[in-house]
């Protein structure tokens, strides 16, 4: 064979491993880029979810540890429900109703967040919110009561807007209770949520029902009042029995706050992490 043939053979022999090396290097780089992207997306998800569940819970989910254990947490619960919503839903057109409801949810959520609470879920026209569920909050009772007043004030303003548009006004009943709940991931594999369950949540919902029967739009239990700043204007209401609780509950109406307005938490913008 001539020298030229040897040279070509040699070049081909050298080109094959070089090509393989170049290709595998590109694959590694590509994998590395994808890994970076996945990690960034994972971090982004973690940051977003930290508004809805404690970091530890999110990390356990990411690590796919499956069995996320429940924890007992001290929590203040706000349960709000629109009074007469069923009748309203029959009066106005569906798209108008959805618009009214979304405007209401947005304003209530802002009032709750401004006082360091987080909305756990919307149940029909109801709102379930927790204070102290994601992180320890020794001022959770005051925060919850301030949030309830802020919700009422925000609704008053919203009613003004609704009236100007010729729409019916809304009235909200709010129940607030404080106690121990079980925090954890609840649901099926397809639909799971971080929430608090237990008697404390049920009592808050039942106390909210009392706003239909008693003279008060914000009703709190004695367990909450015990920890409340005395500057809240509260008045006792008749002890009342509620479903699921054997003894009559001593409840109070909260009508306002006579101290200096509390320091609100900084607003969280929509694009905050």
């Amino acid at each position: 064979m001539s020298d030229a043939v040897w040279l070509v053979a040699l070049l081909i022999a050298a080109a094959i491993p070089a090509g393989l090396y170049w290709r595998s290097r590109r694959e590694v780089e590509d994998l590395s880029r994808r890994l970076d992207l996945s990690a960034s997306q994972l971090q982004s998800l973690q940051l977003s979810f930290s508004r809805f569940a404690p970091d530890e819970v999110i990390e356990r989910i990411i690590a796919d540890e499956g069995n996320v254990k429940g924890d007992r947490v001290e929590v203040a619960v706000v349960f709000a429900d629109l009074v007469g919503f069923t009748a309203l839903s029959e009066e106005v057109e569906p798209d108008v109703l959805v618009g009214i409801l979304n405007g209401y949810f947005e304003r209530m959520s802002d009032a709750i967040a401004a006082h360091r609470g987080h909305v756990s879920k919307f149940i029909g026209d109801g709102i379930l919110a927790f204070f102290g569920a994601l992180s320890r909050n020794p001022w959770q009772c005051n925060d919850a009561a301030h949030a309830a007043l802020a919700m009422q004030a925000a609704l008053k303003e919203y009613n003004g807007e609704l009236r100007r548009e010729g729409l019916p006004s809304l009235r909200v009943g709010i129940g607030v209770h404080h106690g121990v709940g079980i925090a954890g991931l609840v649901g099926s594999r397809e639909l799971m949520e971080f929430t608090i369950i237990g008697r404390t949540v049920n009592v808050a919902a039942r106390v909210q029902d009392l706003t239909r029967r008693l003279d008060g739009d914000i009703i709190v239990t004695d367990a909450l009042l015990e920890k409340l700043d005395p500057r809240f204007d509260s008045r006792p209401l008749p002890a009342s029995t509620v479903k699921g609780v054997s003894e009559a509950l001593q409840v109070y109406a909260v009508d306002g706050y006579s101290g200096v307005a509390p320091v609100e938490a900084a607003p969280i913008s929509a694009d905050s992490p």
Partner: protein
Amino acid sequence: MSLLRDIEWEPCLLEPRPDPELSDRLKKRFGRVSPSTHYFAPCAELSESIAALNGLLLVRVNVDQDLLDKVGVVVSQDNSCRYCYAIQRAMMFAVGVSDEKLRRLAHEVHTGDLTDRERAAIEFTRRVSRANPLPRRDEARRLEDAGFTDMQVKEIASIVAINVFFNRLSTLPALPPGRMEALPDRWYVKLARPLLGRFIEGMRRPMNPTKLDSSEVEGPFSTVVLATNGLPLARELRRLIDVLLSDGALSRRSKALVFAVVGRALGCEYSVEEGTRIAIESGMNPGSIDEALDHLVSEELSEKEKQVLGLARETVWYQPAPIQRRARQVRDELTTPEFIECIVAASTANMVCRLGAVAVDRP
């Protein structure tokens, strides 16, 4: 970590005010002046303490550098502090750690791609940093089962606490991260990298244990200070607490109440008790202190104090931009030295409570 660079960050709440006399003093003592020093210069003594603590981020006694780097990354991630991450990135760039390696480091601590020993240390780091709830001392002792000595555990907690301090100190006034973020990409920095690397490697050095003098053992928060005895932090922490709790722009009692409020928020009874004791010593009525701690308001509190305590509670868990907007509201009510003392007090209180993990037994 690239995500940290995308985090919303407000305009800075402090003006840099270089103080030549202070800069000379710091150059003599530490050989350099950190860019953040100028923002705190109106409180010269505090500024000197901050500079001393800053230097401690580079030194180690018993723990290897690689682990300390990971600890720093974890705390920066957890606190979403752009300024701290920018400094860390710039420093690691200088000592030859590429962005890719830094990203890998961030992935490792995120995805748990670690040795058992490292995993134990990182989990402890996260628990101390997040303090939700604050870990107990027996949890710290569990690290010893993973092969760490008592002093190594204390050193890890110290590094976390110092990082937590700087996260608050830079996030609350929104110190501008832009310059530091861009630094590693500048051509002249790239050119000077070998020289810079040597300079920084010289600072990132192992240190011999240092013991406190008898005069430094006594004083406010002595349990926490003593727990770090042997580490370089002990002396600087003593000095920082003493300077901070002297009457300055804000009263001693206001700053003591900040410690008590942060302690109450984090469940650190030690900080609550010490803060309360100092506030009583400063003439405040114990009933008013209880009321202030229970409700963050009291007839005896001034309007400024209500603002300061309102911000103090927010410094425990936060998202950068919202806490910076909140800090801006407080900034408008205070003079510059008052605002600086307020954020240094809140940062120190957060650091002290984290150190409680290795100093205080809880029931």
